[in-house]
């Protein structure tokens, strides 16, 4: 695919840029890299060439432990990393338009309208001094130039849609007057306000209690269904991904180690790290006395080993793993795996 030429034409309608290709994948991220810049010149790479495609109406989960690069990859795709402190490489095409080379004003028009994000911590993502209704209405006004009255009516409608009881009255409340779960609903209302076709949810329920988490995940799944948007779910929780995702990508040390349809990945992990995670996760069923940890801990960004980043913790490590980094290669029918010696996945489990 050729690099689309991007012209900054402020008067072109933001929702139909001239370079949009209707047949192109919804969101196609190729060789994404992120370097955290340092004044001393020792820049640190935290995302090492991540590629994935998000298809229409699909839910893709990026699963990773802390420091795996999952959130920063999403921030990079959303153009939310400050250029003064982070350098982003590769491409992230939304229906053919590379977001990473868009001029800031074009990106701003697209963000929210086509791609929107739900953050983990609603309390710090919302402005504490403004009413929640105003914040939702402002999102609509900024992008669509509608009048105050219409924006307000739509905001109340959105609050009802994310099931905030008594939305017309609660429109005037401030973020602190809502519970954690209700605040997350407000965030979701803002994210879906402009009808985006891609929703990125970064640990959307991590700060919430388990019964409230179940409500929010149900709401996200319903909205995805209703609107026909696609969902990129970023999570550390193997359980959440199992309950929501169509496909799953496992991240480690700034790379994707394995990617597969959800059932295949959980039933027959091909990468030893995926297998290790599934053996370490506490469950409500099965043997209660047996948890198999992965030895050691995930490497920090400055301390990456040579070869495969997982090799110091891998039970199946061999000579080659310590020197040569495996590429993420297709393992038919529908899997990608970055391992020199992947586990046998054909046949029954």
């Amino acid at each position, binding site marked *: 695919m050729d690099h689309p030429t991007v012209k900054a034409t402020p008067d072109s309608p933001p929702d139909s840029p001239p370079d949009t290709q209707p047949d192109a994948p919804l969101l196609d991220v190729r060789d994404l890299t992120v370097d955290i810049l340092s004044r001393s010149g020792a820049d640190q790479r935290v995302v090492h060439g991540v590629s994935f495609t998000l298809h229409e109406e699909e839910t893709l989960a990026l699963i990773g432990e802390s420091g795996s690069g999952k959130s920063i990859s999403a921030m990079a795709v959303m153009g939310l990393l400050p250029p003064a402190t982070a350098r982003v490489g590769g491409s992230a095409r939304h229906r053919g338009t590379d977001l990473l080379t868009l001029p800031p004003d074009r990106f701003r028009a697209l963000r929210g309208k086509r791609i929107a994000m739900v953050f983990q911590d609603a309390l710090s993502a919302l402005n504490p001094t403004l009413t929640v209704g105003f914040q939702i209405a402002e999102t609509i006004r900024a992008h669509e130039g509608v009048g105050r009255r219409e924006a307000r009516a739509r905001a109340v409608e959105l609050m009802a849609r994310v099931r905030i009881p008594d939305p017309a009255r609660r429109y005037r409340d401030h973020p602190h007057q809502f519970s954690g779960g209700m605040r997350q609903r407000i965030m979701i209302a803002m994210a879906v306000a402009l009808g985006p076709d891609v929703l990125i949810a970064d640990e959307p329920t991590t700060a919430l209690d388990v019964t409230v988490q179940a409500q929010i995940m149900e709401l996200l799944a319903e909205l995805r269904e209703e609107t026909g948007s696609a969902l990129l779910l970023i999570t550390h929780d193997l359980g959440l991904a199992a309950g929501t995702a169509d496909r799953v990508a496992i991240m480690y040390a700034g790379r994707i180690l394995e990617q597969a349809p959800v059932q295949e990945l959980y039933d027959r992990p091909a990468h030893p790290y995926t297998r290790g995670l599934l053996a370490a996760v506490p469950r409500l069923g099965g043997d209660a006395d047996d948890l198999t*940890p992965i030895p050691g801990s995930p490497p920090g960004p400055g301390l990456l080993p040579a070869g495969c980043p997982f090799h110091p913790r891998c039970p199946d490590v061999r000579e080659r793993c310590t020197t040569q980094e495996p590429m993420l290669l297709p393992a038919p029918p529908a899997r990608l795996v970055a391992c020199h010696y992947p586990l046998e996945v054909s046949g029954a489990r």
Partner: protein
Amino acid sequence: MPDDVPLLEARGLVKHYRSGSLPVGGRRRATVKAVDGVDLTLRRGSTLGLVGESGCGKSTLTRLLMALDRPTAGTVLVEGQDLLALPSAELRRRRRDIQLVMQDPYTSLDPRMTALEIVREPLDIHRDLMPKQERAPWARELLHMVGLDPGHAHRHPHQFSGGQRQRIGIARALALRPKILVCDEPVSALDVSVQAQVINLFKELQREFGLAYVFIAHDLAVVRHVADEVAVMYLGRIVEHGDRDTVYSRPAHPYTRALLSAVPDPDPSHRGATGRIVLQGDPPSPTRPPSGCAFHTRCWKSQERCGTERPVPTAPTTDGRRQVSCHFPEN
């Protein structure tokens, strides 16, 4: 000490706080019933899992069990001895038996101290336990016991990973040779691959030293892997209590059922399984708990009686020692 005296026992524990006079919502001073009548026993060498969502009173209960706070009513007994009736010198001595492992290994360790100093500090405070020259060797041995390289004893907390830091916190809690560890969300800040290491460490230490744990966590799947008994808290009360397998496989209280049903299942083939319960709304505020059964406002089985009459715990069943506070429990 005879075996029938529980290691730790709470009887009728109540802790009410008077909230501040901020004119929030037009109310002036409200009473927060953080813990509202809790009975518990902990047997030697066993683990009691305490589960509940935020605001259910788990942390207040922890403070009461450790005699860090005085209850409004009720007593805490260690080996039959009432902690609140003890003279302060003896309470201080008794405290050695109950030590705390905190949630956050990033903020609960002093960044200026080395691992060795952190583990040794309790011994320098309780000076009569061990002569000075024995303290550093014991601290080193503790670091070794929790799986750290004693060669790293002079490193500072920031030089360790999250899991290693939690191991330092555990070594510190063990320094005074306690009988009980109260563990407040001890693995919830850890990544899943490391979490399992620390869970297994807790179990090894228990086998080795006959420790008893009060293991407080919001994650029911984690608790299942460590606890012998489970108590489920809701708005300051224990709504169900019993042997682990009984409570997990046949929950009697609707809230326990809902909690278990809400735990994300790491198996996609169970998706859309029937019988999944998604509760509506948030837990009510402990400043204004609902009348009758505190759960009735979110309970799908609620009847008129539930709104007026507070259910009392049933007598423990012979099978699974289950007690439940519900007018209409599951069978």
